Every structure is written in structure tokens, then in C-alpha cells.
């Protein structure tokens, strides 16, 4: 009797856990990551350690929020790291000529490339992955052409203070990241734009039939992604204070892994920016934790590749979709 009751209870809690795996899973993952690194490295959660972690995750969170919207519609944007790079380089190269006007300039350039990405996908029917791959090569070329491959140092103090002023014990980039995250969550969950994004990702044809202008909506989503990548680039430059065309190299897979690790499936129509926070914490804290322990780039790439494959298998809803290309 007692045993049956216990079984029923544990069965129920297991069922509950399974149903909420997309929410609970990332939290368990974060706790595990923090615990492991804390055991190996006692300085992981010290004040300086936490500041490092905050610096590592903030700009990443902004870029990941943009990518989340694109993945929610079932598409993919490969050009996020390249846009981040271009925006950061525009800031550092032209700050002496036009002052703080570089920020709107960088944002508009990235918005424009996001628009081009969206047009290629929605109008010309180029698969988004390849369209953005092509655009990212073009961006790479532009970045090389503008910077000539030199390492550039940001001299402007006002620009630097954008991300590095300490307010309440945290650098201001933390508040930027959190602010963008809250706005994106609001946008996804509480506005018509967000609901349409879910509709487009869930069933493109159905969304078209229910009077959503799917072409224009997909373009808008890519523009949002470009804008947020640009913002991430501006804040990245403000935080780091310099860089070359190497900015954002090897960032594509960690970015993607952070979105799926949060619980946004690649097939679209589910998840959202509110979930991406946990994914970003997982990925960037593993990255920062490994860097603190002097573990090299090779092990990091290996880890993120495996996380990306594993999490995509875990999040895809196999019952709903029939054909995956």
C-alpha cells in the first residue's frame, strides 16, 4: 500500500519533470556547470570571477537574442558573428572622424545587411543558411578591406565608458544585456510581432493564410537579428577596447549552441528569448570557466560542437514534423 503510493508519487513527479524538461533541463545544466567549475576552481564564484562571467555573457546574450528570433521562425542566420565584427570595426575605425555617430552608423549598416538576408530568404527563396553564409563571406571581405588586417585600439574614453562603467557593483554592459533580454522577451511573448513570429515558425503556410504578410515578417525578423548583432558589436568594442578582423571567429557554433541549449528548437515555432538566457549562461560560463583553467580553444570547440549536436537532438519535436532537410 505504502509502496504503491510512493511509486505513484514518484511517477507523477517524473511525469511532471518530463513535461517541463525544456524549462527544468537548462536550469539543472547551469547548476551542474557552476558546481563542477566551483569544485575545480574555487575562484569561479568569487567577485572577480563573477565579473569575468558577466563580461563574457553580456554581449553574447544580445547577439543570441537576435539569433533566437530567427531560429524561432525556423530559419538560421550564419552571419551574426560577421555582423558583430563589422559593427565593432566600424566603431573603432571611424570614431575619430565622426565621434559617437559611429554607433547609429554601425547599427544601420547591420540593419541593412539583416534586410538583405531577409530579402534573399523571403523574396528570392535562397535557403537562409546559405544566403547568410554568402553574406558573411561578403562581410568578411568588407571587414578585411576596411581594417587592412591591423589591430585597432579604441582611444575614445566616452565610448569605452558605455560598457565598462560600474553601477551597483556590476559593469554597465550587464544592464545593457539584461535590458535587451527583457525587451526581447516582452517582444516575443506580449506583442503581435512575437505571436506572428511563433506562427510563422510553427506553420508558414498557415500563417500566410491567416493574413500575416509572411514575406515582410521574415524580413523584419532578420532585420531585428542584424540590429541586435550590430548592438552586440558596439558593446563588444566598448568592452574590449580594441580588436582586429579576428573578432567573432569561431563564434557561430557557440551562439547556435546557446540558443538550442536554452530550449529553442531548430524547427521553429517554439522556445523564445526568455529561454535563451539559460543557454547563454551555460555556453559562456563553460567558455569562461575553461579559459580560467587555461583549457585551450580546441577543447572548447569540441565541447560546443557536441553540445550543439546533443541539444538539437534533445529539443526537436519529432512528432510534429515530417520532413527535415
Amino acid at each position, binding site marked *: 500500500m505504502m509502496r504503491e503510493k510512493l511509486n505513484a508519487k514518484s511517477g507523477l513527479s517524473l511525469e511532471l519533470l518530463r513535461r517541463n524538461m525544456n524549462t527544468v533541463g537548462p536550469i539543472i545544466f547551469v547548476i551542474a556547470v557552476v558546481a563542477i567549475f566551483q569544485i575545480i576552481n574555487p575562484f569561479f564564484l568569487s567577485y572577480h570571477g563573477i565579473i569575468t562571467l558577466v563580461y563574457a555573457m553580456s554581449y553574447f546574450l544580445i547577439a543570441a537574442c537576435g539569433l533566437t528570433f530567427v531560429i524561432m*521562425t*525556423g*530559419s*538560421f542566420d550564419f552571419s551574426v558573428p560577421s555582423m558583430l565584427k563589422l559593427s565593432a570595426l566600424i566603431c573603432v575605425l571611424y570614431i575619430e572622424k565622426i565621434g559617437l555617430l559611429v554607433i547609429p552608423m554601425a547599427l544601420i549598416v547591420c540593419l541593412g545587411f539583416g534586410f538583405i538576408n531577409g530579402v*534573399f*530568404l523571403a523574396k*528570392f*527563396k*535562397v*535557403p*537562409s*543558411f*546559405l*544566403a547568410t*553564409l*554568402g*553574406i*558573411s*563571406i*561578403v562581410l*568578411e*571581405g*568588407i571587414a*578585411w*578591406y576596411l581594417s587592412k588586417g591591423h589591430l585597432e585600439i579604441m582611444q575614445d574614453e566616452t565610448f569605452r565608458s558605455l560598457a565598462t562603467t560600474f553601477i551597483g557593483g556590476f559593469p554597465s554592459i550587464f544592464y545593457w544585456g539584461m535590458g535587451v533580454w527583457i525587451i526581447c522577451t516582452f517582444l516575443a511573448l506580449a506583442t503581435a510581432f512575437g505571436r506572428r513570429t511563433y506562427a510563422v515558425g510553427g506553420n*508558414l*503556410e498557415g500563417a500566410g493564410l491567416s493574413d500575416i504578410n509572411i514575406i515582410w515578417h521574415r524580413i523584419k525578423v532578420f532585420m531585428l537579428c542584424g540590429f541586435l548583432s550590430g548592438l552586440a558589436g558596439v558593446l563588444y568594442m566598448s568592452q574590449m577596447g580594441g580588436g582586429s578582423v579576428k573578432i567573432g571567429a*569561431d563564434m*557561430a*557554433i557557440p551562439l*547556435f*549552441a546557446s540558443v538550442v541549449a536554452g530550449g529553442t528548437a*531548430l*524547427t*521553429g515555432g517554439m522556445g523564445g528569448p526568455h529561454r535563451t538566457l539559460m543557454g547563454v549562461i551555460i555556453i559562456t560560463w563553460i567558455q569562461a570557466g575553461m579559459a580560467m583553467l587555461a583549457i*585551450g*580553444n*580546441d*577543447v*572548447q*570547440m*569540441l*565541447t*560546443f*560542437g*557536441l553540445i*550543439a*549536436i546533443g541539444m*538539437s*537532438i534533445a529539443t*526537436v519535436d*519529432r512528432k510534429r*514534423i*515530417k*520532413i*527535415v*532537410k
Partner: protein
Amino acid sequence: MHPVIIVFLALLLIFGIIYPGRFFSAINFKAILRQFVTLTLFALGPTFVVVTGRLDLSYIGVWMLGGVLVWLFKPILGMLSIIMIPITGIATGLFIGVVQTKAKIPSFILTLSLLVTYTGLTALLAGGYPRAVDGYEFITTSLIPLIPTAFLLSIPIITAAVFLMKCTRICVYLNAIGSNEEGARLAGINVDKYKILAFLLSGVFTGIGAIILFQHLGGSAQVQLKLDSIVWPLVAIVLGGTPLTGGSGGPQRTLLGAITFTIFYRGLYLSSLHPTMVTLLVGIVLIVSIIVSARGLKGVTVT
């Protein structure tokens, strides 16, 4: 006549007029052949996958990981260790095929993640440096002047790929899956089996091609991943006329695309353009050729 043939002839004509002495020289001819071999051997395998409407980006990963495994197993297996490259290719193809078909993950992201994993693994195994492997120079020793031996060796591989695509029923099945998967299933084709077969063929051809490429590209295990080397074979496939949505084309088209892209690249290479501008133009060619190859598609959902 396929439009890319006109592009090919036009490029030959234009570059021949611009650089009369240099373009049709013996050195340039050899360079074109060398680059054509590299591009073709990387692009041949993935073409089978692209015909089904999917993507396989793991080719560079197979070449890199295979190379470092050869270096690693050389003391144990001796000269036989070269078989590590095809083994890597076949295992990769099988793994991707099974995971993509059964777990239903979009193929490009699966293969891209796998590529990054392989890069990390390669760097880890090699200790972060390119590792030179001696003893395989015989693969590319010059037999006929002006014609690279790698080109001669690639002829049977190319023939096998074209034969598979042209003279067996694999062609029909893969094209059917590419143009309408649901229809192919209803017509009684074992869709899952042929999807896995496509990825497996991709792995086999990449694996065998990578043996030649291993020596052709310097005879050492590389640890650096470049975006260019991922994109060029894709450009060759798309430029040749295999649309990324699947349903037509094949290795014979990839040959055309590879030679056209090589001529294009060599022409730019001879010009005074800055290398970054060449990179930029390659990106534009990729996008334009995808748009051209996707023309006339109605009712296909593109994500």
C-alpha cells in the same frame, strides 16, 4: 545547353583577351588543373546529398581528422595508416545519415556542428600544430609533365561517381526524394534507406578523395579551419546547376561548376585585385548562383 557552359566559355574568352600571354600559359594550365582537382574531390561526395535536398558540410572535417589520424597511427600501422582517412569518411557519412534521418535534425546544422567538433578534436590530437607525414610522396609523383598526378588519380573516382548517378537506379531514387519526399515515400521507395545511402556515399567519396588531397595539399595534417575552404566546394556544386532544394543535377554537373569556378578564380588571381576583394566576389557568386538555380521554384517552403 546548360547556362553554366555559356558562362564557362565566356570566362575563357574574357580572360584570354585580358591576359593573352599569361592565361593560356603552361603554368596557368597546371595551376587550373591542380585547383580543379582539389575542388572536385571535395565537392563530389556532398553532391549526392545535395541532390536529396540536404547539405553535407563535413568534407573539410573528414580531411583534417583523417590526416591527423594518419599521423597518429603511422608508428603503429606503418604505410597502411592511410586507410584511416576513408574509415573516417565512411564512419562520418554513416553517423550523419543515421542521426539526420532518425533524429530529424536539419542537416546543415548537424554537419556544421560535427565539422566544428572535428576541428577541435583534430587540434587536440595534433597538439595544436600542423603535423607533417612522410612516406606518401609517391601518390603525387609527376608521371606526365604538366598534368598533376592527382588529376589522373581523380579520374576513376569521378567516373565512379558519374556512373553511380547516371547508370544506376540510385539516381532516380535520390532525385525523387529531393523533389518530393512524401511522394517518394508513397511510391514505395524506402526513403530513410536512400537518405542514409546518400550521406554514406558522400562520406565514401570524400574519404577516398581525401587520400589524394592529403598528399596533394602538402602531405600534412592541418589544424586550421578556414571559411573559404568550406564555401568553395559549395559554390562548385551550386554553380554547376544542382539546386540546393534538391531534385536534379549530380556529380557530372559539379565537374562543370568546379571547372567554371576555377577559371573564374584563376582569372581574378591573375588580376591586380586585392585578395579580400576576391573573397568578396566569391561570396557574391555563391549568392547569385543560388538565386539563379532556385528560379522557377513555386510552392517550395524554404527556411
